[in-house]
């Protein structure tokens, strides 16, 4: 089942606490996930901790699924970092700022693995 959502990226305390340690598994744990509310997770038919493929017009990325009851319906959140930035909108809209919030995304369950930071960046080489 695919969920159509609006993606927001942003800071979290654990993302910040590991920001100077980006080769660590702690950083991956803190940033390579996607939060949805329980109702949206129900639409996907999988449980938190499973992996999801997040696709936008700008790319795709595999991250872990997490539950956040504070998200409204249809809002997905990925902490800022290389996993989120694999799918954000690069258009700077004439003012230098890419689209880090408000990106239409399609989210679906996947068996693919979450790439390590090194592997993720290697895709760009």
């Amino acid at each position, binding site marked *: 089942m695919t969920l159509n959502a*609006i993606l*927001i990226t*942003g*800071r*979290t*305390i654990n993302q*910040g*606490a*590991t*920001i*100077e*340690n*980006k*080769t660590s598994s702690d950083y991956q744990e803190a940033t390579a996930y996607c939060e949805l509310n329980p109702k949206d997770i129900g639409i996907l038919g999988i449980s938190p901790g499973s992996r999801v493929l997040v696709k936008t017009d*700008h*790319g795709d990325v595999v991250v872990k699924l997490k539950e*956040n*009851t*504070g*998200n*409204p319906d249809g*809002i997905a*959140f990925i902490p*800022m*970092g*290389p996993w989120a*930035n*694999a*799918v*954000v*909108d*690069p*258009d*700077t*809209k*004439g*003012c*230098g*700022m*890419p*689209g*880090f*919030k*408000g990106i239409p995304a399609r989210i679906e369950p996947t068996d693919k693995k979450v790439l390590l*930071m*090194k592997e*993720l*960046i*290697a895709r*760009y*080489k």
Partner: protein
Amino acid sequence: MTVITDALCPFCGCLCDDLTIVVEDNKITDVKQACKLGAAKIMGHHRIKTPMMRKDKNSEFKEVSYEEAINEAANILSNSKRPLLYGWASAVCEVHKKGILLAEELGAIIDNTATVCHAPSTLAVHEKGLPSATLGQVKNRADVIVFWGSNPVHAHPRHMGRYSVFAKGLFSEKGRKGRKVIVVDVRKTDTANMADEFVQLEQGSDYLVVSALRAILSGHADVVPESVGGVPKEQLSKLVDILKTGKFVAIFFGMGLTQSKSRYKNIDNAISLVTELNAFTKCVITPMRGHYNVTGFGNVCAWETGYATAVDFARGAPYYNPGETAANDVLTRKETDAAMIIAGDAGAHFPADSVRHLAKIPVVQIDPYWNPTTEVANVVIPVAICGVEVEGTAYRMDGVSLRMRKMVEPTHLPDTEVLEKITERLKILRGE
């Protein structure tokens, strides 16, 4: 054992100046009063030990001397027709000054991390000015605090305790009990959970909601529909009442405004609301700056070049036009043909399109830590950590300049020395 009191935190724009640092054998063994973010940075961990180089970005790095790495960095920049010097926010102002000199020498574009943070706020300030106040004024006087599109519980953990929500001051001796706290956000964040009034809006509708508040404030509630951006008119009217009747209203805003649809126009509109509120009460607005010295770069760059960021020296004189000269503009246009990334991590924090281009061009990285930028770099020059191993000036989010203290002796060259040596080498290469 040495105990350093009143040390400054080199993490976020709060620039907390009340830390206690315990040092044993030139190693930091304890950090007191800091939040999780500050403590993690100050305690530190695996550093890049020596400079490294590689020709092919898919091959392994080879350890080299500082001299070899600096010479190669100068070669790369010297051979570039359209270099980009990006980052700067995790360094002190003394580093910024050297960086701007290097940019001028190269005819480069120099841009800082505000480009993916509060640069749109600067554009809005060009249009409307910034009716603001120091955090000290907020602590001592504010009785209404608004967080709009910002989540200080996660991004600025001590802001509420030291300066805003809970802080007790001269005319705010009741602290939290004497304050109304409003949070405007798309998600019910941990900050929203602490609010007296949570305004939940639909993603990307900030401009509409600000406009509705302005209409109600100016006596035109009749033109406002029953719901704006998912917020009931009734709540908007209640919000206007709280803002109007506050004695000192302090609005803090974050990426919810700068990164959403309408970008700088959201802030432009919010500043107009603040200006109009000042007809009824005292109201100020402050951006929640991320890196501890991102504000410092804006200041140094403005007094050196006339512009706060995204400055293009290609014409020989400073030129500024975000949308054309910001880092992600030139990277996504594939215009940049070499980049130096210093005290910021473009590899982690730029969209894939920009990183894809960085992976194709020569990249020099100056940073204490291995990060995604290292993965696309050709030359890596590790440096001392500003604010931990190097003293210098930094600017708090409210524009107050403070002196960062040295906690331990550095084990690596400071950024200033690396930049000086690159500039010297560049002049030799050019026969100057």
